[in-house]
């Protein structure tokens, strides 16, 4: 892929603390990339460094082959949408959207035509004379987007633009923003801590952990093939088992435990290893059956677990069970309800089980 925005071995420090510890990332023209991570992982710092509000201590940032590392924010062809929207309360919607055009000395008639175009693109037609204080959260967010897009930037940077919106509005705005981005063919970098938001909106997800990139890939790749325990946990594989594994060629054999049977899992993309390991899986796509019913036992592949139902709830769609495996407990969703206290067997399919070396002793 041709890199349009290129970030090479970039490091940023705030005083004593190094926040970005060498980031390498390239974004193609027209691509929508989400920077995903928990708070303090450096995702906003990375975005602000791309925008030109932080100066890296090492590394370069290039746009279309042009080194912009030391360029001021306005010379980079980028527009940033702030988390707080940062609208100017003393200006009307029209003035907010048109400010960048005024700075570029665009003739007044062209500028007001462009402002009108932005307003109709974002459904703000009737609100031109209002001040930001008289707008709803969703409307403010769209004004902020219009202000950024009005100057026709090459790259759109979005800093958690949906985090101040109501949950219901957020779902529709997600789709509005990604549809708009595709329509305009604009390159976009979006910062978020919301996994689902990143999955739904982005072409590619970059997961950051402690100032480094943990994994980069399409939503399907990072969801289905996490390359580390951190990514697996971040992508929702919250059920944990401590297991012992032995490498057998490109497969790994999981030793039998007090609540699990011996299993062999085939790992095409991962180097097999021997020793203590962490096995992770999600609550979805797990086979559940009564212990008396041995339909699960006759099927092969995956990891078979034996446990007792401790708690049952119905969050909607599927029944959610908390199942005790000795001292450990896991959460498993099933289509039918298993009563509290029932002995059950669980089968975790091979491709739903993520195994990583145990670092925690």
């Amino acid at each position, binding site marked *: 892929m041709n890199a349009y925005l290129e970030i090479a071995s970039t490091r940023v420090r705030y005083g004593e603390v190094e926040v970005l510890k060498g980031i390498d990332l390239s974004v193609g023209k027209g691509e929508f990339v989400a920077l995903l991570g928990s708070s303090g992982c450096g995702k906003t710092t990375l975005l602000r460094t791309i925008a030109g509000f932080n100066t890296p201590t090492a590394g370069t940032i290039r746009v279309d082959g042009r080194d912009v590392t030391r360029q001021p924010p306005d010379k980079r062809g980028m527009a*940033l949408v702030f988390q707080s929207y940062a609208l100017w309360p*003393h200006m009307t919607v029209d003035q907010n959207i048109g400010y960048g055009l005024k700075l570029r000395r665009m003739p007044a008639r062209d500028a007001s035509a462009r402002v009108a175009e932005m307003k109709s693109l974002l459904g703000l037609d009737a609100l031109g004379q209002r001040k930001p204080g008289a707008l709803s959260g969703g409307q403010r967010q769209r004004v902020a987007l219009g202000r950024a897009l009005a100057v026709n930037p090459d790259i759109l940077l979005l800093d958690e633009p949906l985090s101040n919106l109501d949950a219901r509005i957020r779902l529709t705005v997600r789709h509005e923003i990604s549809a708009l981005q595709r329509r305009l063919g604009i390159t976009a970098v979006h910062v978020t801590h919301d996994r689902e938001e990143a999955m739904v909106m982005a072409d590619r997800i970059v997961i950051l952990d402690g100032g480094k990139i943990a994994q980069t890939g399409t939503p399907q790749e990072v969801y289905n093939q996490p390359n580390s325990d951190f990514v697996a946990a971040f992508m929702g594989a919250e059920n944990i088992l401590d297991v012992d594994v032995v490498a057998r060629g490109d497969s790994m054999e999981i030793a039998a435990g007090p609540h699990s049977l011996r299993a062999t899992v085939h790992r095409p993309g991962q180097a097999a290893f021997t020793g203590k390991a962490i096995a992770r899986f999600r609550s979805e796509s797990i086979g559940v059956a009564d212990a008396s019913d041995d339909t699960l036992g006759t099927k092969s592949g995956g990891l078979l677990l034996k446990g007792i139902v401790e708690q049952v709830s119905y969050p909607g769609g599927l029944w959610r069970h908390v199942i005790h495996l000795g001292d450990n407990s896991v959460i498993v969703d099933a289509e039918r309800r298993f009563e509290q206290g029932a002995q059950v067997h669980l089968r975790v399919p091979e491709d739903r089980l993520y195994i990583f070396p145990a670092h925690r002793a």
Partner: protein
Amino acid sequence: MPIPLIGLLLVTPALIIVLLLFIVPLFSSVTGAFDVDGSFGLGNFQKAFELYSSDMIFTVVIVLLSTFLIGLFSIAIGGYLTLGSNPRAVAILRWLYRWPLFVPFIVVGQILRTFLAKNGLMNSMLVEGGILTAAQTVSFLDWRGIVIAFVWKQTPFVTLLLSGAMASLDRSMIESARNLGASRTRILIEIILPQVLPTLLVGLILSFVTMMSVLSVPLMINAQSPTMITASMAFRINAYGDYGVANALGFISLLITSAAAWIYLRQTMKERA
């Protein structure tokens, strides 16, 4: 005892003090202004306008000019404190600009008297530096000296209020303007200033009222006519024991400050609404 009565009893001492030390003297001064040999009349005002109308104009012009300059300087200093890119320069300025707040007006007058006189420190430095010859030097001990003293003393006060208001603005509002390519001057004038205007107005009005009441600076710096109303009032009482005209002058300066107070009150009402 019923509770409302206890409450009333508790505020009574404060009320009495306000009444005795503030309302009564103010009232007697106002009535004194209209008292001509024991009966009601406008004689004191007639005399005040005859003798001191040029002082009144002088006072209003000087205080308005000072207020305007204080506004300009405090916007410039506050703007640099908020937008300055050199952290060391910002820190030095932040440390330095507040000093005059702690210097009394009389000391400001005294300092500037020795500094601005024809043979004062400023002119000596200019002559030593070869910028002026001794023949070219002028004394600044007139209206210019008063304006310099007022601006020197009151700019830090307004800057203190203004830079606080500027600092409490959301930083991302400044960054979003920078992101679109606004220069620092434009950010100051178009983004920051409109949002801190109410604070600036309040600071300037409080300064205006303070300057209206300063006696020491005109006495120290401007020993000639016309001078400020405060100096004329002091002269009326000390030289002639003429309380009637002094009261009339006081009433006139009260009217001027009341106009400023009215703007101030209207502004605070608007903020609360």
